[in-house]
């Protein structure tokens, strides 16, 4: 991401951005002209603030859109079901991150609770997104990225009172004041233990070396929380988020884009071992994408109860281009032949994957220049054969990536868009 140390100047500049005045770079207009437009601007601002104020008073809670949010909400949200069936959502704005919930499967949401009471510069993008997880006791863990002493730091906060209040956000990395941490991935293991994996720049002493490190920690119930950041791997491609799932032995398995010798940006698995053994890491996609660029296109992984790994990823390699799916019946040692999915002429991207027994579901988006389509494709035999792709929703505005989630009410695609708002779309 940002702040490579061979650009020390950039880092120091970024670190001070809070102090700069955005308007400074625009020189004053010629007299007369400037006055006219200042009036225009003032009138618009007054109209806007009046409108915002009214919205605030009327729609305190229970709305399906983001009108009741101070700055209109955000595009890159995350959701998770709680044990009581409530759908919890984390919504980033420019200076605050909020959590709200829905008791009617995403149709309406509660009044948002601000996580950071002190204003921060929130850092968010499709790849660098906030996360939320709720364990069986209803304890909520959230993560998000914001500027700190460094340009970007992953923060976490927890709520032990069903979302009524949250702990003061703290950095997850023990070196947060010295190195960037970002693109955090929050996941609960089968017994409800929260893990966070993130991109960390602390080991980049020689800035010509490729990629970041992956660090991770678990978040326990201790107050104040005590955790140790542990390193998993180097040479992680800087701009792609990490995917995580848990094997049948409850150990985390990560899928991420790495930089392999020759600048190849293909994917690898990392398996965390029990009993403090060294984590294992090996390459699993062989697309030969040799490029010094930021694809900003992370992969997805799911593991079934019978231990089959299912993966989905994007590549523009010389061997293949587009979105692909594959499975492995030997815990990632060998994978099936990559199966292409998505219409190549419609920029298919940002897949998510879920497995329920033999049922495997893929979701992704396609864009035809006007509309974004939300697609799904399903297999009922563990990924051997697949039904036709089906479009289940569309949008004509900016959209977030889609995510699959399920509870005892069913299986859903969670999809946010600027125009249509948040949608939880049930799958049959």
């Amino acid at each position, binding site marked *: *991401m*940002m702040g*490579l140390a*061979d*650009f020390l*100047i*950039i880092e120091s*500049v*970024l670190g001070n*951005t809070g102090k*700069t005045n*955005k308007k*400074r*770079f*625009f*020189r004053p*207009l*010629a007299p007369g*002209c400037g006055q006219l*437009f200042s009036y*225009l*601007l003032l009138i*618009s*601002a007054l*109209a*806007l603030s009046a*409108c*915002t104020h009214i919205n605030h008073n009327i729609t305190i809670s229970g709305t399906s859109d983001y009108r009741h949010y101070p700055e*209109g909400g955000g*595009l890159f949200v995350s959701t998770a079901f709680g044990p009581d069936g409530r759908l919890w959502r984390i919504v980033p704005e*420019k200076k605050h991150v909020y959590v709200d919930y829905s008791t009617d499967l995403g149709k309406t949401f509660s009044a948002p609770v601000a996580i950071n009471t002190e204003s921060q510069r929130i850092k968010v*993008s499709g790849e*660098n997104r906030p996360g939320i997880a709720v364990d069986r006791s209803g304890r909520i863990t959230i993560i998000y990225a914001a500027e700190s002493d460094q340009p970007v730091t992953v923060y976490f906060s927890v709520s032990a009172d069903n979302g009524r209040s949250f702990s003061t956000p703290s950095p997850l990395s023990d070196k947060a004041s010295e190195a960037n941490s970002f693109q955090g991935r929050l996941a609960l293991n089968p017994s409800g233990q929260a893990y966070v994996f993130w991109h960390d720049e602390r080991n980049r002493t020689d800035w010509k070396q490729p990629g970041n490190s992956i660090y991770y920690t678990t978040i326990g119930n201790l107050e104040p929380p005590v955790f140790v950041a542990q390193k998993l791997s180097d040479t992680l491609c*800087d*701009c792609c988020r990490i995917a995580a799932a848990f094997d049948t032995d409850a150990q985390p398995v990560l899928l991420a884009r790495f930089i392999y010798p020759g600048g190849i940006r293909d994917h690898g698995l990392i398996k965390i071992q029990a009993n403090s053994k060294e984590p294992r890491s090996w390459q699993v996609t062989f697309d030969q994408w040799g*490029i*010094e*660029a*930021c*694809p*900003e*296109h992370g992969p997805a992984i799911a593991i079934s109860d019978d231990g089959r790994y299912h993966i989905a990823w*994007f590549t*523009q390699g010389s061997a293949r281009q587009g979105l692909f799916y594959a499975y492995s019946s030997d815990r990632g040692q060998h994978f099936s032949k990559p199966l292409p999915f998505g219409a190549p002429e419609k*920029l298919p*991207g940002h897949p998510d994957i879920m497995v329920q027994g033999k049922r495997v579901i893929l979701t992704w988006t396609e*864009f035809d*220049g*006007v509309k*974004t389509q939300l697609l799904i494709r399903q297999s009922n035999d563990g990924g051997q054969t697949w039904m036709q792709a089906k479009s289940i929703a569309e949008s004509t*505005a*900016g*959209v977030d990536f889609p995510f699959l989630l399920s509870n005892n009410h069913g299986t859903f695609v969670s999809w946010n868009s*600027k125009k249509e708002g948040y949608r939880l779309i049930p799958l049959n």
Partner: protein
Amino acid sequence: MSLKKIFSVLLFIFLALLNISAQAEKPILNAFTAGSYQQILTNNANQPFMLVIWSVTCSSCLKDMALLSSIHKSRPELKMIMLATDDLSAADQVQQILEKNQLSGIENWIYADDNTQKLQFEIDPKWYGEMPRTYFLDSAHLRTGVSGVLSKEDYETLFKKILN
């Protein structure tokens, strides 16, 4: 159109007019919205140019900056346009990076529409958004699009292609 949207549009008109009258002291960022790519083509009719698309969150792009800066100095005859795909809220970071790399004087743009997918598609319907992305356009605006960091030699080869 919501009041907020009207307000944003008015703000952009305001900022755009400011840009016209402003001097190149601090990097001036033009708002890149639907139609801006065509506008760039129209503004540069019959003229070869290079369009560099980057982001403050793209580490590969930052690696590219020093070389771009030296190319800009050594080949002032070649028109270089830069477009940051960052949110407007990151405008100050964009400016500071441009300033530190002495790229303030060139024509700079920043994404100014929530539907970034649409902006991307208008530039190139086959581009997935990986960065840096550089387009080399000859005087007839026949173009070559390249993803990833380029070497000095790569740039020279591609310049030859568009300058002849």
